[in-house]
Every structure is written in C-alpha cells, then in structure tokens.
C-alpha cells in the first residue's frame, strides 16, 4: 500500500485519531495553564517532505520543537511545535517570575527548557495515551527532546525513518489555541512510520484495501 492510496474512510479514521489525541492533550494543557484552550479540527494529509516544511511556516523558520519517538505496536514520531513567542508565553504562565529568553538560553537544563519539556511530556503523554486506549495498542514514547532551531532541521529527524520507504509523509496535524489572545497556538504533528499504518487500520477494524 502506498500512502497516496489512502481512502476517505482511512483518512477519516486518522482524523478521528488526531481528534481524540489532541482533545485529551488540550484538556491537559488547559488544566496546566488554567486557561481555556481550543482545538482546531485535525487535518490529515499526504504530503511531500517539502510540503511538510510549509506546515510549520517554512524550513527556515525558527521554532521550539519537542520531539517524541513512539515505539511499541505503532512506531512513529510526534512533534509539539510552538513559535518562540508561544513557548515564552507558556513558560511565563507556569512560572510567572521566570526570566524567559528561549532563543538565547544556552543552558538546556534551565527552568525555561525544563518547564517546556515538562509541558510537552504531559501534553504529549495525554495525546498518546488517548490514542493507545482508543486503539487498544501499545504506544510507548521516549523522553521529550527539545530543540530551538530551524523547523526544517527539526522535522527532518522524524522524516528519516519514513524516507527510507517513501517520499511522502502522512501528517495528522492539529492546531490548538487559547480562547483569549491566541497566545499559545501550538501544533501537534503525528508522523506514523509506514509500517504502523496497516496496524492502526486493522486495530480500528478497517481493511487496508477499503
């Protein structure tokens, strides 16, 4: 099966997965920051690697990227991507007294980065545990890896595994934002490895050729 052949039923299923995962994550983030957080309807797209870069504002764009490797039944990668401003607003929300400068903070163990990793851990953990409960599959995830760098450089890490098999990635993309000043829009990007797709579909009771 190539990804180009995703049926509309399969797309709907993947969209629903994005919905469930991000819905749960949004609740966690909302509790964590004590703010109302909203979630956009997820999109499922089959994109080239270059189109992938456009999702996150271009490969040159500086972003805060949290990366988690998923292992278990459905290997893949999850990204939680924030702009610099969003990340700083998020840290200030949690630690009001913090002196936050994401771009120039050289200490990867600083309060700022620890707070961001912890948020990532909680939010992504709820994203993935919702998926794993829903599908009845084992999805364990790595510790959070954080990088403040060019979006292209960060996203490529998750594409390396996929790129051995194809030149397209299936992206389940969900944007979240707070209800008020749109201070923390964030993006969840789920990149299943090609071998994970048949497992996801069969766990949800649809045939690969449906």
């Amino acid at each position, binding site marked *: 099966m190539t990804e180009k052949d995703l049926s509309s039923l399969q797309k709907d299923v993947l969209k629903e997965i994005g919905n469930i995962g991000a819905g749960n994550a949004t609740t966690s983030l909302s509790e964590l920051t004590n703010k109302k957080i909203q979630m956009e309807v997820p999109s499922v797209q089959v994109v080239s690697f270059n189109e992938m*870069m456009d999702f996150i504002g271009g*490969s040159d764009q500086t972003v805060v990227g949290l990366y988690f490797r998923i292992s278990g039944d459905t290997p893949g990668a999850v990204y939680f991507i924030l702009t610099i401003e969003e990340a700083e607003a998020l840290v200030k929300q949690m630690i009001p007294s913090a002196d936050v400068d994401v771009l120039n903070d050289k200490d990867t163990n600083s309060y700022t980065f620890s707070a961001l990793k912890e948020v990532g851990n909680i939010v992504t953990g709820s994203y993935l545990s919702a998926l794993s409960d829903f599908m009845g599959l084992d999805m364990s995830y790595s510790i959070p890896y*954080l990088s403040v*760098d*060019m979006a292209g*450089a960060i996203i*490529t*890490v998750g594409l390396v595994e996929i790129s*051995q*098999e194809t030149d397209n990635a299936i992206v389940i993309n969900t944007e979240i934002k707070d209800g008020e000043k749109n201070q923390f829009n964030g993006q969840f990007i789920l990149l299943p490895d090609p071998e994970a797709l048949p497992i996801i579909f069969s766990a949800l009771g649809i045939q690969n050729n449906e």
Partner: protein
Amino acid sequence: MNSDNIVRVGISDVKFAQAPQLIRTSGLGSCVGVVIYDQNVKIAGLAHVMLPDSTLSKQAQLNPFKFADTAIPYVIEKLCEKGARKFALKAKVAGGAQMFQFETNSPMMRIGPRNVEAVFEQLESYRIPILAKCVGGNSGRTIQFNPETGALYIRTVNKGESFI
C-alpha cells in the same frame, strides 16, 4: 539582490546555478548540503542529501537526489554537461548535525555523521577536493552559494553567520 536570482533547492533535491544566480537550501539538520562547482565557469550544483546510501532504500522507484551515493554522481555528470570541467571541480559541504541528543545509539539516530561520511567518500572517489566544510554539531543550517565568488554563506539560529 533580486530574489528571483536565487535558485532554491528543497529537501532531497538537486539544482544548478550559473552566476549571477545564487543557490540556496534551507533548514539543513541531519541532511547535508553539497556544493560542487567550477569557479572559472562560474557554475555550481547543490544537492540536499537526506540519507547516506541508496541501498538503505526499501523503495522500488527511488529518488536519486535523496542519497549521497546517487545524488553526487548526478551533480557531477550534469555539471559537466553544462560546461563545467571535471578536473576543475571543487566542493564545499555543510550540514550533518545531530538535532537532538539521543541516548539510544541506533544507526538512524546517527544519521547526520553518516551522511557526512558518505558525502566525503563519494567526493573522494571522484577526486573532488573539499575546499571548505562546516559539518556536525547540533545546529540547523541554511546555506547559500555564490558561483561568482565561490563563497558559501552559512546561517544558524544560535551560532551566528559565516562564510566558508
């Protein structure tokens, strides 16, 4: 400089530029940007290589621009077709970073250094001297080459800008 004069190279892609054009690729992480050029003819090819070795591929129809061992021979061949002289070709190389400090040491996690090794091996096999390089580390890079001067501009987010 008019931005139409900049040839943009995507990921797993190869393109060519003739002065006064510039040639650029953005957001190199573990990928490697390989510039091969003939300074007198003022022509350059840039490959944005993603993986070291096409034998890693599980694809029936592979994209030759994705791998060091297929992209580099292609660049050399096309450059010569476009008037570059094989004996005069030189190379500059940037990229191959490790963006996250993984604890596990799976070969896929070391992809940046492996890409760099593969690129060096290819260039050596064609006897193309590497005049400058900026590889490894853990920063993303955007690079732009000027075939007129042979200068390679490198921008990073945290480690400033440089010319090599």
